[in-house]
């Protein structure tokens, strides 16, 4: 059989794609199914001694108050973090776009936290937020506000951790929006101005709709990030991780504690399945709701 050139090229493309595909299947997809399988067993280091427990772990999900707290916290992080991150990122990107010079300098400044290791960031912030020595409380004192406990208060800790994460992600968000803004053709604005549009209307009818692909990407990727939040939470309260009183505990951290501090890998796998389902569901809904065609 003779192949056309196009078919031959496609065939080669498939051959080359097969290599990363095999890698992906083996290291990404297979473990996902293994977690599903593991969630039906009581963990034991020796595979022959793993006891089949059926849906027992899933029943435990329903009666586990710590899990409920972790789930609630995780969703709260996402609900607080994503809108703040997007709004601040967009405002800063729009301002940066107006800066006639030194834009790269500002961009580098905003981007720096993103590439700083999360552990170092957590360390520095835990000092800045200290009720007794922290810079933040000194600034508040200048405004006549009494010292706040921030990370040590069960009610303030979660918003505080969210703030640190938003601050750290902001640079990436700004860069994304800047790229999106740059890609909008100037002609649209010029045409709209000739028709008499200014300021807010330019933003509403041109910038905002044309930024939609960036927005969808940011929301989806950002949400997945918040749903998997781990490093900052662990390091901001190292000796009582997820504390005080589980007020900062996330699903990912709970999975880690169950699996590697309490060696309950079966139940940990069950929580992983829950997290997987949650991310899948939220991502699909977001893609459905946010993606839209823009017609000009």
């Amino acid at each position, binding site marked *: 059989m003779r192949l056309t050139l196009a078919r031959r090229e496609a065939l080669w493309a498939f051959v080359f794609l097969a290599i990363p595909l095999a890698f992906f299947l083996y290291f990404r997809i297979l473990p996902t199914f293994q977690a599903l399988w593991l969630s039906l067993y009581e*963990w*034991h*280091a*020796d*595979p022959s*001694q793993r006891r089949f427990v059926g849906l027992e772990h899933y029943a435990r999900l329903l009666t586990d108050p710590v899990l409920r707290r972790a789930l609630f916290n995780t969703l709260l992080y996402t609900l607080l973090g994503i809108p703040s991150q997007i709004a601040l990122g967009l405002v800063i990107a729009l301002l940066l776009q107006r800066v006639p010079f030194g834009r790269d300098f500002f961009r580098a400044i905003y981007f720096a936290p993103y590439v700083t290791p999360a552990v170092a960031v957590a*360390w520095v912030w*835990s*000092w800045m*937020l*200290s*009720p*007794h*020595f922290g810079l933040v*409380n000194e600034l508040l*004192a200048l405004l006549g506000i*009494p*010292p706040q*406990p921030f*990370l*040590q*208060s*069960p009610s303030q800790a979660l918003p505080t951790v969210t703030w640190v994460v938003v601050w750290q992600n902001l640079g990436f968000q700004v860069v994304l929006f800047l790229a999106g803004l740059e890609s909008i053709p100037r002609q649209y604005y010029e045409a709209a101005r000739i028709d008499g549009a200014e300021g807010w209307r330019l933003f509403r009818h041109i910038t905002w709709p044309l930024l939609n692909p960036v927005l969808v990407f940011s929301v989806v990727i950002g949400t997945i990030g918040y749903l998997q939040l781990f490093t900052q939470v662990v390091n901001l309260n*190292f*000796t*009582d991780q997820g*504390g*005080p*009183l*589980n007020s900062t505990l996330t699903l990912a951290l709970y999975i*880690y*504690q169950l*699996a*590697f*501090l*309490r*060696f*309950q*890998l079966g139940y940990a796998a069950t929580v992983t399945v829950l997290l997987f389902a949650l991310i899948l569901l939220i991502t699909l809904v977001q893609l459905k709701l946010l993606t839209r065609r823009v017609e000009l």
Partner: protein
Amino acid sequence: MKRLLAFCAVLLPLALAQGVTITYWQYEFRSKVEAINELIRRFEAQNPGIKVVHQTFPYDAFQQKVAAAIPAGQGPDVVNLYYGWAPTWVKAGYLVPLPEDWTRRLDQDFVAMAQAAKVGGKLYGVPTAVRSLALFYNKDLFRQAGIAGPPKTWEEFIAVGQKLTVKQGGRFTQIGYGIAPDGQDHHLVREVLVRQFGGRPYSDDGKRVLYQGEAGLKALSFYTDWVRKHEIGVPGFFPGNNGYRDGFIAGRIAMIIDGSFAIGTIQQGARFNWGVAELPLERPGGRKANFGSFWMHGLTPLATGPKREAALRFLAFITSEETQRYWLEKVGELPASKNLIRDPKLSLHPIYGPFVLSLAYAKATPFVDEAAQRKVMVDAINRVLLQGTDPAQSLRLAAEEEQKILDQFWR
């Protein structure tokens, strides 16, 4: 393919009958790593057929590595672990019991708390060194405040603590006591105060929580009053991992209660005169109590055949009295052998002394799920300190929660 591998696995040790290689894992701690390296050199010289590979991991990644490596057949034959982790590890199949004669050796030669290395009546490890708690105090700050010596009773402790606490506006600049529920203080409440006040934290078989009684309530109320009523300290005064110890080293905290394992760090860091004292008592001549703990060396299911023999020999070597003596000099941890801690040179030592004397009455908490049980007590304290919950209610919640963990394990 599988059969071929199994065949090789059987054949290989036979072919190398005189060349057994075993692996030892511990977490990364400089003086311990250096000590084990030296001990391996000595052991290999005495046992020419055996080679020991020593691997270390950062503390926070240690259990994770063990959890993943052993099921994959890649992990250690001999492993170092905190005694409180043993039940969790045993249940999940990461440790195998030691031979019968080892149980006799432990019962005869080791300090009483080493019994905590047994799970369900079987022995799963042996320690080289043990630790207890004591009061570290800043002698310079004491002298400046005109205080003669370390407090002997809790009443004195509070009075001294108040003198040494400096507050400006709503913020502390120096505190009398480095309060740390998630440091060593959850042990202090559970094992020290409850017993000093005439109670018992657990039943003798470790299966029932008993601290919800009168002594427990007195212990939790008394401890939380240090912050709420007497203001001799504030939680999280210094941020970060072990902030209470950092604050002491920085000279901002006058007293901390810490384990003997902290001696080295404080010795290296503190730029002032400091001392160690046995924990204060309820009243002069009152009941003494202390929390004892240890890291032990256990055998994993990977140590089979000739490797098991070699691993047991290595285990005997690193837990011998000779090693324990070396360990004290090199790492600064107290020996686990009854004989060695009777040595007056040790009990009269100005720094080791208070810890050694405490070992005689120290008890190790019978943890079955250390991470979860620690959290129960830390949360019990935090509910009172951070949320203003009534101590009685907080304690009741804690006891219920911990009883569930115990029941779950022993069912």
